[in-house]
């Protein structure tokens, strides 16, 4: 089976190849574009599933791991190895990314049908898919980082797809720059790691940097502030992950990224790209969990991850409550759920975090596609206050959207969201470091339930608040999306429901698969499901969810909303707080005020410096050279020329005078000779020879 690993590089290569070909195909070849993109991704999906199946039968403490490394670059006596790895974590992610990607590709053929840049769109999509698959299976931090950057590029291109819209262009730039800030941390970590361990390959038959000896060595060294080297590296990696996954300080770009087409939002800002950050932390989990010998307690890196996740969850949920744009609410929900994933990773480890990531991928993709269908149906209308009553007009969309909403909110038992969130809360509850994340998690769950019900009520219940008298005009009437859009919705809805059953406490299949060491798999065991402590937790979370739903229904469901301009219910209750939340807690303004101003200040300073100091210097030098040139010329003009000319003139005049003596007349010569002889005689006689 391990020959499959040799072919594994095809998985990312095919979409990238497709992207390359599509970049060259002319615009009108839409069929080729769609076919090529979907075909290559389908192939990757088949390969990924085959690879996943091959990893199932593995036994052994770490589960299946097959590694393929090759030397890529040698300079001096250093060589840099790249490679890819097939282990449970990467296999699961490969399948998830390719499956969700395929579904969204199919969906976008329908959604983007009307757009003239169809081929370019699919080219970018293939580029993104290839890059994401490469990130997932990379065995070397360099390859991972390269793919990571490619993903960032793809997200920039896709967000700014409609670059005619200035908002889209600005959003793309903002996304790129913010994730870039995060990437700096990752880059620094990479360099430091290389310096510390001498290799960037994760698993290299014992020499890899994530394997026990290297990690132990890293944990052994302490850096400033008592932090161990591994902890410091982890924090830097966390910075990169936070940037890419839109955690609190760097989350500002994600809501704005909604400017891109909805399939993009679904693919990138729900399922895959944002999950990359979480995957990165999962991949480098041994680094995060590294502990110097004998040290007990939760390692500081994991504590940071947990707290970061909890805070982001609550923060984003609060903002989502006050949003009026359909996709922005979902965006903030994604940020909140990513917080939950980090929380899961921090408290529960890889399995817990990854389980929620998988489930979230499915139902968030579903919600986004649903929103896309709604927007498509309402001809581009995104403000929920002008929507309403679509339940009747778009029954399939309403049904699938409702499933997605319930999975997200965490309605118990049937939906996967409940199980993955429950696992996180369970882990948070038993987290030894501090109970804080557990309570934040509960409050977040409450808020999630509340803003989802608010959104569903606004969109699907009550009268249609869109164009007045809309029903009479056929063109303007919101209509159900064609099957090309609804079938992917149905598929995703099925995934949202079924996936939950893999991770229930009774049969933690997924957890066992991801981390066989921690979770022994002995077959379905209802006992664990009904154990006292588990039941208590499940009851608590169910209560919280139901409370959220009720609160949401109470605020918005009781009276049908008819006036699009009517103030929000919450606004009536808490106008100040609500307005604050609506303005996204003025984080952007904060950044605007601090970072941007500071940056422009530095830029201005740089400009002034450049203009005056360097410019001045250049002018000075120029002046000097010109002056010197003038000096040289003057010197030459007056000094040398004149001097030379006068010297020549004098010489010539002397010459003529001398020539005058050469009269050719013999007597003159004779006299001269005799005078000379006399002088000589004089000299001899009285010159001191007496």
């Amino acid at each position, binding site marked *: 089976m391990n020959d499959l690993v040799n072919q594994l590089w095809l998985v990312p290569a095919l979409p990238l190849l497709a992207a390359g070909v599509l970049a060259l195909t002319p615009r009108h070849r839409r069929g080729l574009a769609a076919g090529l993109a979907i075909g290559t991704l389908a192939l990757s999906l088949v390969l990924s599933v085959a690879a996943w199946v091959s990893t199932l039968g593995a036994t052994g403490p770490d589960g299946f791991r097959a590694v393929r490394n090759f030397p890529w670059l040698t300079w001096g006596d250093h060589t840099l190895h790249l490679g890819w790895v097939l282990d449970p974590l990467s296999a699961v992610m490969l399948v998830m990314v390719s499956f969700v990607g395929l579904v969204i590709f199919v969906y976008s053929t329908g959604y983007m049908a009307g757009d003239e840049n169809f081929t370019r769109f699919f080219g970018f999509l293939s580029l993104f898919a290839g890059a994401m698959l490469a990130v997932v299976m990379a065995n070397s931090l360099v390859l991972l980082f390269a793919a990571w950057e490619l993903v960032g590029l793809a997200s920039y291109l896709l967000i700014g797809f409609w670059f005619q819209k200035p908002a889209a262009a600005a959003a793309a730039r903002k996304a790129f720059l913010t994730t870039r800030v995060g990437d700096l941390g990752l880059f620094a970590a990479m360099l430091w790691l290389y310096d510390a361990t001498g290799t960037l390959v994760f698993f290299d038959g014992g020499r890899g940097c994530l394997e026990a000896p290297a990690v132990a060595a890293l944990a052994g060294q302490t850096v400033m502030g008592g932090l161990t080297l591994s902890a410091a590296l982890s924090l830097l990696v966390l910075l990169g992950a936070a940037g890419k996954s839109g955690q609190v300080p760097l989350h500002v770009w994600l809501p704005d990224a909604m400017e891109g087409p909805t399939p993009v939002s679904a693919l990138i800002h729900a399922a895959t790209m944002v999950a990359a950050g979480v995957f990165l932390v999962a991949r480098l989990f041994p680094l995060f969990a590294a502990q110097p010998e004998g040290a007990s307690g939760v390692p500081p890196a994991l504590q940071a991850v947990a707290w970061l996740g909890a805070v982001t969850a609550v923060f984003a949920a609060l903002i989502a409550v006050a949003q009026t744009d359909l996709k922005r609410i979902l965006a903030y929900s994604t940020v909140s759920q990513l917080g939950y994933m980090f929380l899961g990773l921090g408290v529960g480890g890889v399995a817990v975090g990854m389980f929620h990531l998988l489930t979230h991928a499915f139902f968030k993709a579903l919600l986004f596609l649903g929103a896309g269908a709604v927007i498509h149906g309402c001809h581009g209308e995104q403000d929920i206050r002008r929507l309403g009553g679509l339940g009747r007009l778009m029954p399939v969309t309403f049904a699938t959207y409702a499933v997605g909403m319930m999975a997200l909110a965490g309605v118990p038992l049937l939906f996967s969201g409940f199980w993955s969130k429950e696992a996180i809360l369970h882990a948070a509850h038993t987290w030894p470091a501090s109970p804080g994340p557990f309570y934040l998690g509960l409050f977040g769950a409450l808020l999630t339930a509340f803003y989802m019900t608010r959104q569903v009520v606004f969109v699907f219940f009550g009268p249609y608040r869109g164009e007045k008298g809309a029903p009479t005009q056929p063109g303007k009437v919101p209509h159900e999306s064609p099957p090309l859009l609804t079938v992917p919705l149905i598929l995703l809805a099925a995934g949202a429901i079924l996936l939950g059953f893999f991770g229930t406490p009774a049969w933690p299949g997924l957890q066992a698969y991801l981390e066989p060491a921690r979770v022994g798999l002995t077959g379905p065991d209802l006992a664990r499901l009904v154990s006292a402590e588990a039941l208590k937790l499940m009851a608590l979370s169910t209560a919280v969810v139901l409370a959220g739903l009720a609160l949401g229904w109470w605020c918005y469901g009781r009276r049908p909303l008819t006036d699009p301009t009517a103030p929000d219910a919450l606004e009536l209750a808490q106008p100040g707080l609500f307005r604050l939340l609506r303005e996204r807690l003025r984080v952007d303004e904060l950044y605007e005020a601090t970072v941007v101003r500071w940056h422009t200040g530095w830029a201005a300073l740089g400009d002034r410096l450049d203009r005056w100091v360097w410019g001045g210097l250049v002018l000075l030098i120029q002046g000097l050279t010109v002056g010197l040139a003038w000096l040289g010329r003057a010197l030459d003009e007056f000094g040398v020329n004149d001097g030379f000319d006068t010297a020549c003139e004098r010489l010539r005049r002397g010459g003529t005078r*001398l*020539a005058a*003596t*050469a*009269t*050719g*007349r*013999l*007597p*003159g010569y*004779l*006299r001269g000779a*005799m005078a000379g002889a006399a002088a000589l005689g004089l000299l001899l006689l009285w010159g001191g020879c007496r």
Partner: protein
Amino acid sequence: MSPLERALVVSALLFGIGLAGALTRRNAILVLAGIELMLTAVNLNVIAFWRHGGQTASAAGPAFVLFVIAVAAAETAVGLALIIAWFRQRRTVQLDEADTLKG
């Protein structure tokens, strides 16, 4: 005034007269004559030293003078031949007209 000094004074005067003539005369031939006078003065000088120098035994002095006389004769012959040839070309003997070598 020992006889030697007397002779030397006379030869010096003769030399001076010869030189003055050579330097002032315009006619080339007389310049040659002046030179001849200077040569005779030299001979006089040699003989004076020979006579009063105490070496009268050795015949080197007169021998030397004979040679000087011979050379003077040769020199005059050639000089005058040149002057005659030059006269035929230029129709003049005035020295200061012979300035074709003017610088």
